[in-house]
């Protein structure tokens, strides 16, 4: 450390020497100029006295002192060979003294000889013209040689670096020398400090300067992809943190702050709505789904934005309940996405079915383009895919998709190049056309081979994926579930929960403003003749198309429906079978297209609107079923069945025996 500082000190000294040399050269030039001008010359006596006083203690310094008489200075000085550094008049004497005393410090050796001082003394006083030419000669001769001697002498003297400009007599001179010897160490320390301070200030200045990046650097940084990724990531995190409105340092003991507490039992509350100017404008939501793995994530698929031709036709956005301003992920598609589902077995995969018949697979770990696509060929779908569902178990699962030309395809998740199996549903016995235009389908819980489809003509059919005893693969044309007078838009089987099995009941909703409850015919006894199955009950409360319907995942008697007037109806069959328990007008001038309960306990439901907004509603305690719900539901159903299917309500409690 000290070595480094010493090096720094040496460097500084060199700098100082250079400065002083420059100064001396300047001084020499000045003196030369002055030498040419007449100057007053001192008296001889004065000069001698001065010389003796100075030379006295310094005999060792200048063995040539006898030479230093003014008269002989001229010729004698050459042998001395002193460096000539005439300083300014006021400083000449002192300069000389300092040079002698500071001999140890300066290698450059400003030290003028006494001869020079003598000559300078001559210079100080007005010089008679006769001396002038001599002076000049002396000066020019005595330049190089003395320096070396000075150097050797300097080492012995070991005086300090500082340049003292005080005028002193010989005593003072001695004192100065002594002082300087004492001060050597102090000065060294001081230089050390000074250097440290300098470096500190320099560092600070460097910091100040570097703080502001240049424009170029800024531009290069802004374009770097990792910078953009970083901004995406961190801004999402910050926004999620911003959305958390709870002030956790709130002091409950002080102040009378009235916190709004409005958790009523029977209320349906809107939690939030998701909408993004860029992605959702002018688009409608075509399908919604909750994530099986992260309960706060939901996905919505959007159709085409007619106003913006350059934007992708199909958008799929994953929304986070904690991040309200923007989607977590956005995926693009080249054609409208009509159905979307999270993969229940892979946390990162999202499937989408499009208007062109392609099935797309997106990965949340990748960017916004699909990771896998099915080919646009006759092997897959060539018509819009309105419904898709994942069936099976973790190890053996398939994606079943259906399109409006009656094709039902089954795909393996990692092999979307061609379907694992295709099934064309054809209604052989139909009086008009064999084509079955599937709008929706559903598998009952625990079933993977038989499913029910809803069609555009309003009938519901049952179909099998594979041949089985008594039934062939394809549409079961014998059982026609006839009831709706318009396309069936939603079909949902009762989930298998709780002590009583209602999984043969399914609900359908349609364009004819009704919701119907059906009991599926048992698969064990397949029929061989055409039969018409009627609905058990019909709910006629709506006054607009009913777009979607879903049973509640936890409560056996609750289901919800959304319709074209923007209403979200919550029905509880144990409470009232004619009107919904709660009817919420979500958006007065836009229809609600899709509905999905959240998977676990069904407290929340997402509703997809036709203006592109995704609403999240919470139904609170109504979602919690009591013990008696199942038995009550049994009775209700029995009441339906007993009262036939003309919509007339029979009080289920009046019938003693259920079915």
């Amino acid at each position, binding site marked *: 450390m000290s070595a480094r500082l010493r090096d720094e000190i040496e460097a500084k000294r060199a700098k100082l020497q250079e400065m002083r040399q420059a100064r001396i050269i300047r001084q020499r030039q000045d003196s030369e100029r002055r030498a040419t001008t007449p100057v007053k010359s001192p008296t001889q006596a004065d000069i001698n006295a001065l010389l003796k006083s100075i030379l006295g203690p310094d005999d060792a310094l200048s063995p040539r002192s006898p030479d230093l008489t003014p008269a002989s200075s001229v010729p004698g000085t050459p042998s001395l060979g002193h460096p000539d550094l005439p300083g300014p008049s006021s400083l000449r004497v002192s300069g000389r003294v300092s040079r002698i005393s500071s001999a140890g410090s300066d290698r450059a050796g400003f030290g003028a000889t006494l001869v020079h001082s003598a000559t300078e003394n001559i210079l100080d006083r007005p010089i008679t013209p006769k001396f002038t030419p001599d002076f000049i000669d002396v000066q020019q001769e005595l330049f190089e040689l003395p320096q070396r001697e000075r150097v050797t002498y300097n080492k012995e003297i070991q005086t300090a670096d500082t340049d003292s400009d005080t005028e002193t007599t010989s005593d003072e001179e001695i004192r100065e020398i002594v002082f300087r010897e004492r001060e050597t160490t102090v000065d060294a320390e001081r230089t050390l400090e000074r250097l440290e301070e300098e470096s500190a200030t320099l560092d600070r200045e*460097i*910091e*100040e300067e*570097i*703080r*502001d*990046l240049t424009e170029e650097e*800024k531009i290069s*940084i*802004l*374009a770097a992809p*990792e*910078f*953009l990724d*970083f*901004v*995406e*990531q*961190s*801004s999402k*995190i*910050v*926004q999620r*943190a*911003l959305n958390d*409105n709870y*002030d*956790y*340092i709130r002091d409950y003991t002080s102040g009378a702050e009235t916190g709004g507490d409005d958790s009523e039992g029977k209320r349906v509350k809107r939690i939030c709505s998701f909408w993004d100017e*860029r992605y959702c404008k002018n688009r409608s939501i075509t399908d919604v789904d909750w994530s099986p793995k992260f309960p706060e994530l939901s996905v919505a698929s959007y159709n085409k934005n007619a106003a913006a031709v350059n934007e992708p036709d199909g958008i799929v956005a994953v929304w986070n309940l904690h991040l309200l*301003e*923007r989607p977590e992920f956005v995926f693009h598609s080249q054609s409208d996405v009509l159905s979307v589902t999270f993969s229940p077995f892979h946390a990162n995969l999202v499937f989408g079915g499009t208007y062109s018949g392609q099935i797309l697979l997106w990965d949340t770990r990748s960017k916004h383009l699909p990771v896998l696509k099915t080919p646009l060929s006759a092997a897959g779908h060539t018509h819009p895919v309105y419904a898709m569902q994942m069936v099976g178990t973790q190890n053996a699962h398939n994606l079943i998709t259906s399109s409006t030309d009656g094709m039902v395809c089954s795909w393996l998740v990692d092999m979307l190049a061609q379907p694992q199996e295709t099934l064309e549903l054809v209604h052989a016995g139909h009086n008009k056309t064999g084509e079955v235009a599937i709008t929706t389908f559903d598998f009952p819980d625990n079933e993977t081979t038989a499913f029910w489809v809803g069609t555009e003509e309003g009938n519901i059919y049952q179909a099998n994926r594979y041949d089985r005893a008594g039934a062939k693969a394809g549409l079961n044309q014998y059982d026609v579930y006839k009831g709706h007078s318009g396309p069936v838009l939603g079909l949902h089987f009762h989930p298998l929960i709780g002590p009583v099995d209602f999984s043969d009941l399914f609900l359908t909703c349609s364009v004819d403003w009704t919701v119907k409850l059906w009991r599926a015919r048992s698969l064990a006894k397949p029929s061989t003749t055409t039969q018409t199955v009627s609905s058990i009950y019909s709910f006629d409360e709506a006054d607009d198309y009913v777009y979607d319907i879903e049973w509640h995942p936890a409560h056996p008697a609750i289901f919800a429906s959304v319709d074209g007037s923007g209403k979200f109806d919550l029905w509880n069959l144990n409470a009232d079978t004619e009107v919904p328990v709660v009817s919420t007008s979500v958006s007065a001038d836009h229809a609600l297209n899709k509905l999905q309960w959240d998977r676990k306990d069904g407290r929340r439901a997402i509703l997809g609107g036709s203006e592109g907004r995704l609403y999240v509603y919470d139904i609170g305690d109504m979602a919690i079923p009591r013990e008696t719900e199942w038995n009550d539901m049994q009775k209700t159903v029995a009441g339906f069945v007993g009262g036939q299917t003309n919509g007339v309500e029979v009080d289920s409690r009046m019938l003693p025996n259920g079915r």
Partner: protein
Amino acid sequence: PPELEQTLALLSSHRSVLGYLLLSRGQPVSIIRHSGVVFEGEHGKKYATAIGRMIESVQGALEEVSGEVNEGDEIRFMRIRTKRHEIMISPDKRYLLAVLHDPTT
């Protein structure tokens, strides 16, 4: 790039956000971008050094605690709630996003 601008504009338009600072980590931290009245000029520079120092010291403390050289742990997100504001810092290997907001609004 427009997405960047959009994201940052969205961030600063949040009702409780007073401003943000985008810094690049380095021995003296340098400001890439800033917004909001709070981070203007000299004051912003002071904030930048302060935040840089904070992150360095916390990271150093983490490393001390974890003991070994193999980076056991690193700061993922820092949320400092003071009496008046809350400052949220999301660091990265190379960059730093700091957002100042007032949670009571």
